[in-house]
């Protein structure tokens, strides 16, 4: 492993300008400069990755994903307004750079290193939310990610002498990082607790790198299909009842990850390309939704005039063919059908439709009732526009990225998707939606494990520590006391022998004489 790692480190990974920019942004006190440094870093990184010539480090699909990461970082920079976002910006840039480097790393060790960097940066973003909940979610996030990192480390260490269990460790680690159930709770709490800017950065790379790693290392694991589908269905149900837009979106993210994992489970070339396309598409439309939701949340729920069209476009990007969301899901669907799992394709389409309805349409209808928020700033508009155009570009030119993409434009997938979207619209645009009563934090209990559990577990060790400390203290007291007792006894005996009248001295002389005689005679 050390040789591969040494090789990896030999040449600087692609994302390094971003990491550098992030570090500088974090340490410079003035916010404006932080954003400019960020933009510079972005441009430098893009130029270095594609324009600087030399063999492209990444294959086309991964390159596209890297570009998507850069777009998200750009949107995040534009969206970030206030001063206290400085930590989020800095950590976001570092994380984006690390994500690109992770994509480029060849050895498992390289991947592990950069995923850890992402974990640390993301934890910082979450904690930058500032609320007590954000700190707890951030710490829980960090602990779980580090646990995954350690499992990965163990896998690599075991792997180096070829035992079979090494693979299991690596798989478990990547599943944790990809927020597979039953460990998906950290993502829900983290994204919900982060600041609006933070959530934009988080939505992009945190889980996607893990998914790509899974695709590279474990294609065709049958168990993953079932896990993926279960995850998709399980995560989409709470979206029906959740009223808080951001929490709703996090559930949607988890369900889309389920779809991707199902695709990886299938393992055919078509499915894997579908997964990568969905990943890129999901990065774009999820971030767009977070931008819109963030803009709304920043204005306390009062929607500014210019936001509604972007909300509509965001909703369409989720599933409308020709835009970002549709392409990946359709290809995966086709791959499933080719593999004889037609029903799985239906499940994916239905889940897609539900996400389209709950994450896109319902907020569009319900959330924009109270106008009057201060005007949409130019920066926020630009960020949203950038993502919409990216979605459009991906939707239409997706075919160029991979030969499998044209499968999405066959008749059947288009028709099925059309029907599903129509049904979703029907439900959401009519009073039928009121049947699904909404309240904030609905089905929150499903977001297992809770941050309090994770932190509680680690602090539980603290209580063990307190107990150990007490035992140690008691033992020390005991030994100390015993020592003092022996000390006093010894001093008492020694003084008895040493201090007293001269007569005792002579008496002792006689006793010694008798002892010497006895010993010598004996």
């Amino acid at each position, binding site marked *: 492993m050390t040789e591969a790692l040494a090789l990896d480190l030999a040449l600087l990974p692609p994302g390094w300008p971003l990491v550098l920019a992030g570090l500088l942004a974090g340490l410079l006190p003035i916010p404006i400069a932080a954003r400019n440094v960020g933009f510079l870093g972005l441009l430098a990184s893009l130029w270095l990755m594609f324009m600087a010539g030399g063999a492209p480090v990444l294959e086309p699909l991964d390159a596209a994903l890297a570009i998507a990461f850069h777009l998200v970082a750009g949107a995040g920079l534009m969206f970030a307004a206030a001063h206290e976002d400085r930590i989020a910006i800095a950590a976001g840039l570092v994380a984006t750079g690390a994500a690109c480097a992770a994509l480029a790393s060849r050895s498992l060790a390289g991947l592990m290193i950069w995923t850890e960097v992402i974990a640390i940066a993301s934890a910082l973003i979450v904690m930058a939310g500032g609320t007590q909940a954000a700190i707890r979610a951030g710490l829980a996030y960090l602990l779980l990610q580090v646990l995954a990192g350690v499992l990965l480390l163990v896998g690599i260490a075991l792997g180096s002498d070829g035992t079979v269990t090494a693979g299991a460790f690596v798989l478990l680690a990547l599943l944790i990082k990809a927020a597979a159930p039953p460990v998906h709770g950290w993502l829900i709490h983290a994204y919900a607790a982060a600041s609006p800017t933070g959530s934009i950065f988080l939505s992009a790379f945190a889980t996607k790198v893990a998914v790509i790693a899974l695709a590279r290392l474990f294609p065709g694991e049958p168990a993953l299909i079932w896990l993926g589908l279960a995850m998709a269905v399980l995560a989409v149900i709470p979206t029906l009842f959740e009223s808080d837009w951001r929490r709703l979106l996090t559930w949607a993210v988890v369900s889309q990850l389920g779809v991707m994992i199902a695709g990886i489970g299938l393992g055919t070339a078509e499915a894997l390309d579908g997964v990568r396309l969905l990943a890129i598409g999901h990065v774009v439309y999820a971030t767009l939704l977070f931008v819109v939701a963030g803009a709304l949340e920043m204005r306390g729920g009062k929607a500014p005039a210019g936001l509604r069209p972007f909300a509509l476009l965001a909703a369409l990007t989720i599933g409308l063919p020709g835009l970002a969301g549709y392409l990946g899901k359709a290809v995966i669907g086709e791959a499933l059908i080719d593999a004889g799992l037609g029903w799985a394709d239906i499940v994916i389409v239905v889940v897609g439709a539900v996400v389209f309805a709950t994450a896109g349409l319902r907020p569009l209808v319900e959330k924009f009732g109270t106008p009057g928020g201060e005007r949409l700033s130019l920066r926020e508009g630009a960020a949203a526009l950038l993502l919409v155009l990216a979605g459009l570009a991906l939707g239409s030119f997706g075919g160029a990225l991979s030969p499998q993409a044209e499968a999405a434009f066959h008749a059947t997938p288009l028709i099925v998707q059309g029907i599903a979207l129509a049904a979703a619209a029907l439900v959401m645009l009519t009073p039928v939606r009121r049947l699904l009563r909404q309240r904030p934090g609905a089905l929150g209990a499903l977001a297992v494990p809770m941050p309090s559990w994770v932190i509680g577990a680690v602090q539980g060790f603290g209580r063990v520590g307190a107990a150990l400390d007490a035992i140690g203290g008691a033992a020390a007291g005991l030994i100390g006391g015993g020592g003092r007792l022996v*000390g006093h006894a*010894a*001093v008492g*005996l*020694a*003084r008895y*022998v*040493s*201090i*007293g009248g*001269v007569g*005792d*001295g*002579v008496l*002792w*002389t006689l*006793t*010694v*004489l008798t002892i*010497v*005689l006895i*010993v*010598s*005679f*004996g």
Partner: protein
Amino acid sequence: MIAQNAAVLVVVLPLLSAPLVALIRNPAIAGAAALVIAALDAVLATLLLCQTLDGTVISYHLGNWAPPIGIEYRIDLLAAAMACLLSYAATLVALFLPVSLQGAVSPGDRPRLFAAFLLCLAGLVGIVVTGDIFNVFVFLEISSLSTYVLIAMGAGTDRRALTAAFDYLILGATGATFFVIGIAFLYVVTGTLNMADLGERMATAPKRAILVGSSFIFVGVALKAAMLPLHRWMPNAYAYAPAAIGTFLAMTATKVAIYMLIRMSDFVFDTPGEIGRVNFAALLPPIGLAMLLAGSVIAVTTKDLRRLLAYSSIANLGLMLVALGLGGVAGIAAALVNLFNHAIIKGGMFATTAAVLHRRGSTRMEALAGLSKDMPVAFGLLVLGGLALIGVPLTAGFVSKLVVIKLAFDQANWLVVGGVLLTSLITVAYIWRIVEAGMLAVPEKPRPRRDLHPAFILPAGLLGAATLGLGIWSEPMLTLASRIAAQMIGTAP
């Protein structure tokens, strides 16, 4: 002429000059005279050492009476080395004795103190030099009587010196009498008093009488060597005597007793298990370890620095006895290394304590506050001596401790190994009391910086340098000790 008669002159010189010094009126001149005589004695002793270095044994017949009838002064390497130790100690102490007595002893009494000092020196050197066992008793009495007087002279600063002297007198006289009884038994069955001759005749003598005689002698010497149950006199004697005298006693008194044990070890007490001899191997290690423990434990609780050093001396004596108990050439060599090193270390510390007493008037622990600021050199020497007692590397103490433990390891005597190592922990405790009292305690009123009086610098400094020097370059000490031990065991008559 001087060279041949050095053997007897080394005793006669201080013996005859003592009354003359007593007659001098002016204390300063008397002090100077004492110093000169002690220095001359040291020269004579060094002469003897040079003559005996190559293994020759000088035999001087008093009054030309041939042994075993006449009294013979047999000087081998051990005797010469001990004579050097005694006379060097006397010279060093004589350097600061006059200054140290100011405020402690009235000027009128001082000449008599110097006379007693010289008498004590004569007695001790006599014990070391003579080859006749009764003559040892006579010199023992001479040195003891003068020691009682010297201790009593400490009454100026602490009246308890009187009772200390009285106790020591009673116990000392009892011990000496036991010694004489022992000689009587040995004389009855062997008919001779010459130690070398005694050794040969004892092999064929009736066992029980020899054993009783040996036991009496052992108890007599044990009392002089302050072995554990009989050490009652020593702390008071060292603590209440005038500081300079305390230094002299610490370097010599009990050391001579250990010498007597070694000298008679090859005829009075011998290899374990042999009927008729005191069983060293069974007796000495336990007593030694007990002394190590008791001495260290009480040292931790004493209130006065000089009593602390006295009890520490008991502990170090225990270490010597342990070494002697392990037996063989290595055992005696280890005991001798400990003897010489401890004399140097403890001499240095007592001399420094005398300097502190001279400046501050008291050696109680509270009086040491702020020592590191206004008497840094003195404090440095005390700490150096303390580290040597603990057995920190690069000090003489480390060498002496190492020699004993290594010997115990080679004999797989785990009791001794564990005992010596553990008791060195208690040593850390009482040495660090000195450091904390001197460095960390805050004095009520800060004192101006007035370090050791010049008279103390040479002796305390020399001994301190020797403590460090012998720790780093211990080769000369080790070869001397092993050569003596080889001569003892090898050429036993």
